[in-house]
């Protein structure tokens, strides 16, 4: 099996299982990749053999620790590339997604890291707002949540600037509740029994795991 095919399969399974589901069926995988179910069954068998997947039932599989590491690395490459193509180069979203699918298999980890850092820097530079791109692919920030929602923090951008968030208990993995959201987007979140008021520009750098 080509390594790019392996990566495509793992990425597809990651996407299917992302919303808290435990496993993906071969039908769903076939639909996501646009190939025959028979082909999928054959490929899954070899992926299980190689230790990327484990069977949950006859028809369903889930990622092993190893498989999920590969999948999230590819998914990240895809996100970064797509973001780069749409936001920095102005390629339209559909085409960017397709090309990111091709490029993600050839690009090295280091180059992706550098590209990502480069874009982070560009984002914090005055006058550039790339929040929209980050939110594609089903990522939302705290500002997308409504009053009363609870959300699990996935990532915080600009971690060094926002050190105080960590100390107040807002860190990746923690669940926060939106207590108040003003029309001007200043918010109050409740975390660890305390209410924390946060300015909009900081709230927008807090990425939450699933969109409400």
């Amino acid at each position, binding site marked *: 099996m080509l390594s790019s095919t392996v990566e495509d399969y793992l990425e597809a399974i990651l996407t299917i299982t992302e919303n808290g589901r435990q496993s993906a069926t071969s039908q769903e995988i076939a639909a996501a990749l646009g190939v025959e179910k028979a082909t999928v069954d054959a490929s899954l068998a070899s992926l299980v053999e190689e230790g990327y997947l484990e069977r949950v039932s006859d028809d369903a599989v889930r990622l092993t620790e190893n498989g999920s590491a590969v999948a999230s690395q590819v998914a990240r490459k895809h996100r970064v590339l797509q973001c780069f193509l749409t936001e920095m180069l102005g390629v339209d979203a559909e085409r960017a997604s397709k090309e990111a699918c091709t490029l993600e298999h050839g690009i090295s980890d280091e180059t992706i890291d550098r590209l990502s850092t480069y874009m982070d820097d560009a984002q914090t530079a005055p006058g550039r707002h790339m929040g929209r791109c980050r939110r594609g692919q089903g990522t939302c920030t705290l500002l997308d949540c409504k009053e009363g929602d609870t959300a699990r923090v996935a990532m915080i951008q600009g971690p060094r600037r926002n050190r105080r968030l960590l100390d107040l208990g807002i860190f990746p993995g923690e669940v926060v509740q939106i207590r108040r959201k003003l029309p001007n987007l200043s918010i109050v979140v409740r975390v660890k029994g305390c209410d924390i*008021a*946060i300015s909009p520009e900081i709230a927008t750098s807090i990425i939450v795991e699933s969109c409400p």
Partner: protein
Amino acid sequence: MRFALIGNPSVGKSMIFSQLTGLGVEVSNYPGTTVELQRGNTCFQREIIELVDLPGVYSLDGSSEEENLVRRFLEQKDTDAVIVVLNATRLERNLYLLLQVAEYGLPMVVVLNMADEAVKEGLEIDPGPLRDLLGIDVIPTAASQGKNIDQIIPAALAAPRPSAIEIPYDHHIEAAIRSLEKMFGTDRKESIRALLGFGDNPELLEAARTIADEIESRHRMTVAQIIAANRHNFAHEIAGLTIKEKAHLPKTDLDRILTRVFPGIPIMLGILVGMLLVVFITGSFLEEVIVEFFDVFLLQPFLALGLPPLVEELGKSLLLALQAGFGIAFPYVFLFYIIISILEDSGYMTRAAFLADNAMHRVGMHGGAVIPLTLAFGCNVPAIMSIRLLSSRRERVIASFLVTMVPCSARSVIIAGIVAGFVGIGAAFSVYAIVFVLILITGLFLSRVTPGERFGMIMEMAPLRRPVPKLVMKKAWLRLSEFLFIAMPLLLVGSVVLGLLEFFGVMGAFEQLVEPYTMALLGLPGYSATALVFGILRKEMAFETLAILAGTANLGAVLSSLQLYIFAVVTVLFVPCLATITVLLREVGSKITLAITVYTVALGLLVGSLLFHILPLVM
């Protein structure tokens, strides 16, 4: 013997400190009250014990001024024991700091404060597991009622131990700690600090950086985030053992009305206007009573004595100064401080900060700036000191300009005494309106031209509490006594100097010299310039001096309404007082201080002369 108090902001450290030492310390229900080390002594069994009150911090890893201060203090190990004060109602978040302090390996005692509030919230506290886990003494207290406070010192004296607790870090971090220990012989705490980028051994930092990069690329989280998450999760576990939610008591949630646009913002504006109105109306009534009292019982009998002219002049100056001082201190300054203390203790200040966050962004700061701006109504000096809670230099520079422009209680005296008294209360409010518009314009302008990074607000909302009258009065009294001890001597000296200058005719010469200019520019007589100059010492002295120089307290008889109005506007805007200039120098440096001084003088004269030349045309 020396013990240090450490804890999160608003956990009652300062209250415990003042109960133990008998010293007055300002206690506020928002972060950032204690920005310096407070030291005090207490006596226990005929031994003198020094207590150090450290500023409230959330963590020892941040880069804010308070965090640096506390970290340096702990690193010097210049204390026999650390008394960690925890808020029982927010135990988990407080334990996060405790775990960090424990890593320093100093002898510790834990004070579980606000135990009474926790019980009221339906929480059941069992200090047993915490005591066992930490291996040190844990004392539940209720500082607001003084409960168990007397046990703290004996516990700290009874040969306290360092806590044996160890935070279980992520296995990558643990591996990094082991590698660093092998390579450099550093202990656990030093290794963790090196991974976070703290330390003074460049080789260690270099090695730690490499390991940290490695860990970061694997976790897709920074090392700081992993470490913080480990500590928080451990704190969560410990808190779960110590505190049980016995009953979920339904609480009235005042935030439902306080932090919404409606009715939150009308309430906020109402509080501001209400505060000014109360101070104006009650203040001017009380002032009249005090001034009358001085006139009838001291001044007139003294003048009736028929002493030699020089002695009489001196005595009169002193009495007038006392009259002016008391006439201001109690009605205005004290009232302002009572109201501000109520706002602080109730926790309302942080609500106002949240509501005003967006507006403050427009003038180049964030919501936290509401606190210095409100404090400034009482006195600019503590307000300037509190701008430290703003995180960037840019915000502090902007705030220092705006805070100095806010009419403090001394300037309110001028507005109330001169404008409200002789022109009308509507005119008095128009002076505030002019000043607020100027503050707004200045802020809009400064936010455009001031260089530097922007920071947003991340602020803990203080819990809403019913202010305790005794504590409110105590705090207001404390602040008033600062005013009395700093301002009164200045007022007395200033008044005597003025009396002498007047007596020897120096004043007359100066006034004749400047009169043509003040008349042309502001339409004010020469002696008003003298009053303005004395206003630099203490703002309210401008008013008193004017009254003394005019030879009557009934200013309406010697000056026109327009003149009085212009005088008040110019004085309110003109140069910050001496005390403010001194703190400005310390907080923002000589360049900015000079800029503020020049700007305010120019602004005062410009606005005054505009009023002088335009008002007669429209009225």
